[in-house]
């Protein structure tokens, strides 16, 4: 398994599953995002990117996330075949 590139969520092509590596935010916001499933280790997918907020799938949850925040979430693409690693 070769190490994959780490990129901000805003750069992740829609439809590709990725694992969250880091959430860059203050304690308060980190906790809030963790409650919604946005924390390191979880798998995330961009469902739609219209240039505004992103529409995300985190497990069964669908989230709208502002671009500014999405830029501070770092992810790494996971192999598409091992999809449901949960």
């Amino acid at each position, binding site marked *: 398994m070769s190490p994959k590139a780490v990129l901000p969520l805003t750069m992740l092509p829609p439809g590709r599953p990725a694992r969250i590596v880091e959430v860059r935010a203050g304690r308060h916001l980190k906790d809030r995002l963790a*409650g919604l499933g946005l924390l390191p*280790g979880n798998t995330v997918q961009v469902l739609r990117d*219209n240039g505004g907020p992103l529409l995300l799938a985190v497990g069964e949850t*669908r989230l*709208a996330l502002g671009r500014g925040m999405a830029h501070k979430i770092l992810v790494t693409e996971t192999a598409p075949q091992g999809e449901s690693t949960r």
Partner: protein
Amino acid sequence: MTASRRLRVALAGNPNAGKSTVFNALTGAHQHVGNWPGKTVEKKEGFYRYRDLVVEIVDLPGTYSLSAYSPEERIAQEFITEEHPDVVVNVVDASNLERNLYLTAQLLEIGAPMIIVLNMADVAEQLGYKIDVGRFAQLVGVPVLTAVASKEIGIEALREQIHHAAEAPEFHTPPPDVLQYDHELEKAVRHLTEALGTLSDLQGYRPRWLAVKLIEGDKQARRVVRNAPGGEAVLTTVLPKVMRKLQRVYGEDVDIALADARYAFVRGLARQVLTLPKHPPRTLSDRIDQIVTNRWLGIPLFLFFMYVMFSLVQNVSAPFMDWIDSIISGPVTTWTLAGLLALHAPPWLISLIVDGAIAGVGSVLTFIPSLMVMFFALAFMEDSGYLARAAFVMDKAMAFLGLNGRAFIPMILGFGCNVPAVYATRTIENRAARVLTGLLIPFMSCSARLPVYVVFGMAFFGKDAGLVVWSLYLVGIVVAAIAGWVLSKVVFTEVHKSVFVLELPRYRLPTWQGLWLHTWEHTSEFIRKAGTVILGIAILLWFLLNLPWGVQNPGESYFGKVSHALAPIYEPAGFGTWQAAGALISGFVAKEVVISTMSQIYIGEQEAKHLQEPPVLQPWEDAKAIVVGFGEATWKATQALLDSLTPGIRLFPTASGDEGNQTELSRALHKAFTPLSALAFLVYVLLYTPCMATVAAQAQEYGWQWALFSVGLGLTTAWLLATAVFQVGRLLGVG
């Protein structure tokens, strides 16, 4: 055994997990909505009887976690730990297990007796999810039930289980170490737990929970430990040592390490109890989102839904508004008048009650149909899940105002009525963004301003009236955009820091019960709060119009004198007459009364209405008129409903039944206004303070200083723009 026992149950769960559906299913109509002490967070309580028990249910605010940062989370955590409910019912969305279990993990740690309800089990089943309920209960150590609250499935079993929890709380209490942390953290938690375990009085708190919360830096836990004898020593010696050790391993983010550990527990739990289908189907919800959030279709679809909503509010409620109006100006007035005359009430008292109180209350009551239709439409959009998509779609446009997508919904509601729109800002988390939205709402032209536009439009602009009305709505939007842009740059600089994150819940068909309860809750709130304000002002206005005693001409009353005094202010805007100023003063109370005040002042027809001879009472005819009137209103509303749902197609041609009694006022207006000054007047009516009820709502939601700021903002903008219209128009030689 006659005396029934009381049992207190707290409902906890994520937003959108169907918590309020469970609450409604359990309590039915026995519920009460208030606020948590000192907070604007809604508190819902209800009760039901079951065998020998009276079960009180407290619906805790929906939260994703219990990190105690937001007021909602703090309320939920403090209620469970301090008020010691007999049972905590954790409502979990079975179709979104993993995310929901994060809160469950935190609830299990608290250690209160608990029942887990896997709600929306039908949705989970449709998606092909299999949940091993027995294994689940075994792993968490508390009973687990499945339910479909919207169909009342599993509710009886839940009642039974709650009853059982009252008998045997020990079977419902999670074991203390159900959630294990990883190596270093677990060692630290155990070490602290032991130290806390030696303390004598922890007020029923579980030492392990306190240990975890102390590591998290939770203020409530510190307070509890400090109050226990010997607790101070634990805080000053043991805790810092433990924290130093943890920080060496985890850095500053110890609480994130705790969150990670909880999530690891949640993932492990989900893996053991949940079987996913081999090929997860593309859900209907995702397919709808493909269309609804589409880059090109999203906004047009949203505008279309808004159009349908407005035509519903306008057309469906109009017949009922006429019906209520006819009852109040008809039977209610005549019967009150007859009663007062029979009691030999003095004429001034009769006038106070009939012209003041009844007319004032009437103006509130006629609002109710349109408010109910709007609240219903809004509840439908919210409960179905569409409202969150609308926020997503509109986020980019709102960024210009320094606001995010969440602010869009209240603004749109403002076109119907500003009062519920102000209350709707509660869904915006960031306070600065909430207040800013609340300040911009009054520029959205509410439906009460429309009659003023129509009367003036017909009097002065003939067939261009429609264009004038349309431009006024547009001016309101442009002014709101400019004001929002300026305020977000100057006053509310911190709105830009607000992070937009919003769950888009799975689409679902709202239940009738849920919609009705929503609608009624908000409507009754309006009647209570706004009703009292408008009644008070209506009576005050009556006194001002009738004092000093025996005044014949409204121009000589106190009201007239105040209007005279204010009139010069409006000279530069072209309508510096006392009559116009007077109409604007009463319009400050409510825009509906602008036209009626004008006809009172200009036509002066108000006297001679109720003289000494008693009115003819026709109880049978009146009762018949009320019932028949309701039937007719329902029929007209049904036609309007069908028309609204088929845009562009008129199924039922509307009879143009304008009574034409406007003509007298129209003639009077022509003497007082030129087309240019009329336009300036309309711009003023559009932009100044919408009504007292809006100000009261703003004061309630944001505090008096912001309510007054909003009044100042409205009055200034309105004057400046009205003056600009008049002066520029004069320079161009129009008018």
